[in-house]
């Protein structure tokens, strides 16, 4: 666009400034607080950078930073196991979403044209309903006096209610329920664009339906699966709502630990270092995703 320089600068400058101010600088602050020590004061961390003393003040500030919080997080089993729990939770959820979502996406993509939009619309609709409401529905269903237990009791299948709410089972159910659309949409979008002739060629060359699917369709739909896996994995790793509503405290996850460290214990430096480490945990899948999607593009 051939805008005059001043307008061009304005167009770049406004969103740039916004992102610098409300995205980049906050992260610099998180990093620096993660290297500080907790104190009982306002703000509850030390040292605090003050610009009054000029460069000497900055130097003084820098010398007081250390990696003590990271040592605490890495040495304490509670934190380590919550990272592992979170990653395990995210991996399992991603896998379950893929296993459940792929056949659904495939079925939608092979439906007649006017049904496709209706099915996508139907799944879309659940996705747009509030996240909290969708999770709340499972509290209604799974509670000790919930709908499922009531039905089982009245049918005489069980004598006393099964504990389903506040278990890992409930967390996985809630997570898969909440994130399944995020897997279905990208897989569907890829399948929808697939060129049918490759599949037909493999059929002509003597492959069975199932063989053709595994050797042609499945490999070709990898970009969609990757995108879906990514969309599910990242938010689930830091998930707070689902574990707090459907889970129990005996399986701590990192989202909850961070939240509690900040809101209940008021240990800001520790909370900041937990989030820095969480970012590091997430960098790996992001780099992998970039790598795989670049490779897909090159093909």
């Amino acid at each position, binding site marked *: 666009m051939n805008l005059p320089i001043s307008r061009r600068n304005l167009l770049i400058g406004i969103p740039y400034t916004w992102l610098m101010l409300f995205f980049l600088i906050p992260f610099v602050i998180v990093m620096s607080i993660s290297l500080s020590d907790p104190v009982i004061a306002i703000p509850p961390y030390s040292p605090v950078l003050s610009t009054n003393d000029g460069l000497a003040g900055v130097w003084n500030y820098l010398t007081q930073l250390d990696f003590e919080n990271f040592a605490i997080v890495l040495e304490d089993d509670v934190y380590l196991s919550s990272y592992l729990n979170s990653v395990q939770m995210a991996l399992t959820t991603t896998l379950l979403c893929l296993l459940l979502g792929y*056949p659904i996406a495939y*079925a939608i993509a092979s439906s007649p044209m006017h049904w*496709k939009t209706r099915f996508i619309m139907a799944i879309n609709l659940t996705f747009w309903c509030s996240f909290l409401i969708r999770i709340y529905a499972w509290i*209604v269903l799974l509670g000790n006096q919930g709908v499922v237990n009531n039905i089982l009791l009245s049918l005489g299948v069980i004598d006393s209610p099964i504990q389903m709410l506040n278990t890992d089972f409930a967390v996985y159910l809630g997570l898969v329920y909440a994130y399944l659309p995020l897997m279905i949409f990208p897989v569907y979008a890829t399948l929808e664009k697939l060129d049918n002739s490759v599949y037909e060629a493999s059929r002509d060359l003597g492959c069975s339906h199932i063989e053709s699917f595994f050797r042609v369709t499945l490999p070709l739909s990898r970009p969609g699966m990757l995108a879906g896996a990514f969309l599910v994995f990242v938010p689930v790793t830091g998930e707070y709502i689902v574990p707090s509503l459907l889970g129990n405290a005996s399986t701590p996850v990192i989202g909850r630990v961070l939240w509690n460290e900040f809101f209940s214990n008021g240990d800001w430096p520790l909370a900041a270092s937990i989030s820095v480490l969480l970012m590091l945990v997430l960098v790996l899948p992001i780099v992998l995703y970039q790598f795989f999607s670049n490779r897909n593009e090159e093909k």
Partner: protein
Amino acid sequence: MNRHLSWFGITSLTLGLAFMYLPILVLVIYSFNDSEMITLWSHPSLRWYEKLFTDGNYWGPAWTTLRISLVSSVLATILGVMISLVVTRMRKFKGRSLFVGMTIAPLVLPEVITGLALLLLFIAMGVERGFMTVIIAHTTFAMCFVSVIVTARMAEFDMSTEEAARDLGCGPVMAFFHATLPAILPAIVAAFLLAFALSLDNLVVTTFTTGPGITTLPMRVFSEIRTGVKPEINALSTMVILLVTCVAITSSLLTKRSAAKRVAAADSPPATSQLASA
């Protein structure tokens, strides 16, 4: 792809849709249950709707949420479209890769981190937290979603239309408003709706960035359902579901009319389908 729908496909589709809809259906049914005990069915009544309307507990937060969502989604749409313009049209300027990185990063960070980071910024700046800080926070993550959707549409846009407008004597800004904007408008509307919905629904970032006196509807609902089942929440959920259904059907009818050819892309949530094709 155009293939035969197998029995396996029909089965998984049916089971999938049942899985997606049964919990919601149960909520709706039980919202008309008169019993105090959520799970025991006594007889149908509108008791919980009455409670919801007379109980002031939800109206204040609902109004706050609506105001926050409106302002932040408008801001996010404007900023997001600006980002898209910069990303698609300006190939060279200092710090471009940092800029592009910053527009994507909020999409790939868990909300707890974004929320914590923004809260620490507001405290460091000495800003009083409340209405404004929540709006800033919501705008910051929503604008990135907006830019993903709009960028994808603009990348497909044929620049020759705009060039033709320039040749016919339009200035660069006029050419954009007359030639490009109408073409990308459906994407902008979809992006605005997504930004609005994301803001309406947000709990984590809001809790971090809000201040005393500002409670949004998700925050209120969350604190209610933490302790278990609340019949009036069933009624509230039913109303939200009804509202979402109406908006979704209206917008799908509108998109059908305006862009019948882009059926699939318009109906799936744009962010995800675009990410898939990216």
